[in-house]
């Protein structure tokens, strides 16, 4: 009985594996790159879905968190700390195995932070920023909240665009791979394409699992109650402010995590990841999937990003997402993806025919 609730996740895993086998067999393995990137982008959408659909808070600046994660990790794994002094700290990190030594083009020794340490720092920075932004902003409603988060996103964009140390308009382009454990590595090299495909999907499956659990739990109910009526939820003992902030930080973490992994996968990151249009895209994806629908956000996230990356929308890329936003809000405010409902209807039909 307990295992029935995990059936959709199992279905997803089977689908992922089947897709990989099918594409490899058909010699279409070149799709893996775009699928992998789409999967990382949909991770951001999942976090945003929790924030918008469950806590009822809109955010037009989530690309900013993706960028914070990606840029922090990119910077720390490419910055030669040997030039920055701090000898004893460097030696300590070296002893803990948290440094990576390489050689640059001229044979000089470079010392960078290990990607794991960079990841930890990136998450810490994200947490700090999310709290700093979230605390004042979470009290706001409607268009005030939208504008405030938009403003935050733009500040991040301006900072990464305008700071020489962050590559300005070019960003970073020589980010090293991220060795997870043993031979498992996040990188963009062709022989590793299938491996990275699975790494990305594993992240998403874990998040879906945790997310689906959360939504059905006491906390999930509390979040939904906040979205329905903040006043009533407050009167029932739900600490509305704290829950909103927690979900905000959680969604920031997911975006930053996606940013870190995607950056190591692509070997780089640029200011285009932090634009307002990127943020708005994520909102369009969540809206199209149905605000409260994690599966919808995942489906739309992978689908729409994949189509966009393959250039199907051409130079009308942004326009398509704008049109999607409008169309969904006007004609299908509950989103397009009804997978759970579909499952339920199928199950009801099966139950009916069995008992007949």
């Amino acid at each position, binding site marked *: 009985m307990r295992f029935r609730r995990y059936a959709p996740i199992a279905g997803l895993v089977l689908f992922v594996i089947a897709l990989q086998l099918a594409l490899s067999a058909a010699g279409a393995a070149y799709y893996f790159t775009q699928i992998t990137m789409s999967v990382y982008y949909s991770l951001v959408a999942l976090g945003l879905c929790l924030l918008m659909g469950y806590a009822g808070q809109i955010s037009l600046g989530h690309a900013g968190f993706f960028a914070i994660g990606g840029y922090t990790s990119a910077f720390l794994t490419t910055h030669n700390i040997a030039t920055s002094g701090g000898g004893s700290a460097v030696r300590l990190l070296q002893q803990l195995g948290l440094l990576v030594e390489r050689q640059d083009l001229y044979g000089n020794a470079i010392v960078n932070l290990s990607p794991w340490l960079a990841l930890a720092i990136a998450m810490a920075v994200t947490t700090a920023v999310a709290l700093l932004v979230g605390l004042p902003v979470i009290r706001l409603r409607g268009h005030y909240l939208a504008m405030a988060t938009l403003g935050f996103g733009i500040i991040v964009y301006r900072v990464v665009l305008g700071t020489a140390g962050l590559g300005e308009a070019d960003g970073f382009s020589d980010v090293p791979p991220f060795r997870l454990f043993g031979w498992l590595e996040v990188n963009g090299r062709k022989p590793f394409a299938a491996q990275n495909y699975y790494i990305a999907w594993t992240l998403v499956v874990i998040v879906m699992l945790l997310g689906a659990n959360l939504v059905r739990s006491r906390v999930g109910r509390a979040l939904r109650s906040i979205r329905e009526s903040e006043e009533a939820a407050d009167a029932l*003992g739900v600490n509305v402010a704290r829950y909103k902030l927690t979900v905000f930080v959680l969604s920031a973490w997911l975006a930053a995590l996606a940013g870190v992994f995607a950056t190591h996968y692509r070997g780089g990151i640029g200011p285009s990841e932090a634009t307002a249009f990127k943020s708005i895209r994520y909102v369009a994806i969540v809206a199209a999937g149905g605000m409260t629908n994690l599966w919808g956000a995942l489906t739309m996230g992978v689908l729409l990003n994949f189509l966009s990356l393959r250039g199907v929308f051409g130079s009308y890329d942004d326009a398509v997402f704008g049109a999607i936003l409008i169309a969904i809000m006007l004609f299908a405010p509950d989103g397009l993806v009804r997978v759970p409902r579909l499952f339920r209807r199928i199950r009801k039909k099966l139950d009916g025919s069995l008992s007949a």
Partner: protein
Amino acid sequence: MDRCLLDTQGLNRFFGGLHAVRDLELRVAEGDILALIGPNGAGKTTTLNIIAGALKPESGVVRFRGKPITGWKPHAIAGLGIARTFQTTRLFPRMTVAENVQVGRHIRSRAGFLAGMFHLPRTWKEERAIREAALAILEKLGLAEDADTPAGNLSFGRQRGVEFARALAMEPSLLLLDEPAAGLNIYETAELARLITRIRDWGITVVIVEHDMSLVMEISDAVVVLHEGSILAQGKPAEIQKDSEVIRIYLGEDHA
């Protein structure tokens, strides 16, 4: 002398130039049904909102079992076991009736984000307890058949019932009702009277803001009449009915 469950002292609240609550000294005895009545604008709902933490008074204290709770946030006050309903039903329309009542169990359960995400075994038991408690309350109130219906689809009267069930799920010691009879017909009001009396018999103290005089006179143990923000008269229902000042503010000079 009953123990005083809740009392206010020197409570003041302004809305711009309007002195809505004026040096209010209210005492709610434990186990009572106390009715707060008065003409429109007397400050009844404002007082209720201040007690529930939805509004902050400009000055004065609110004490619960002697402990000051002035200025506490609504969720903190709920955590003390003070439940409230709203003038217009604030159900969670897209959640089912059962889920609405389950949210009422929020302060009586503990599973947080981590427990929720990882679906730990100790949370299985808690979840089941929450579900059963919610269902039990719905059955007590005769609403169990609607358990899986989205709350927004219910009729107005039954929605009110769900709001009650949700508040009772908190196992409160004090229940604040804001015009619960508004919009109910005679039969529904009679049912409401029975329900509130049952609630009092379960040991829950009730403070009710109401305009329906027959309901008030029928069920209250104590009546407090507010006028322009302060107490005009208080006492047993029968005494209030005969009080000339009260009659004057409700019906005008001629009837005093």
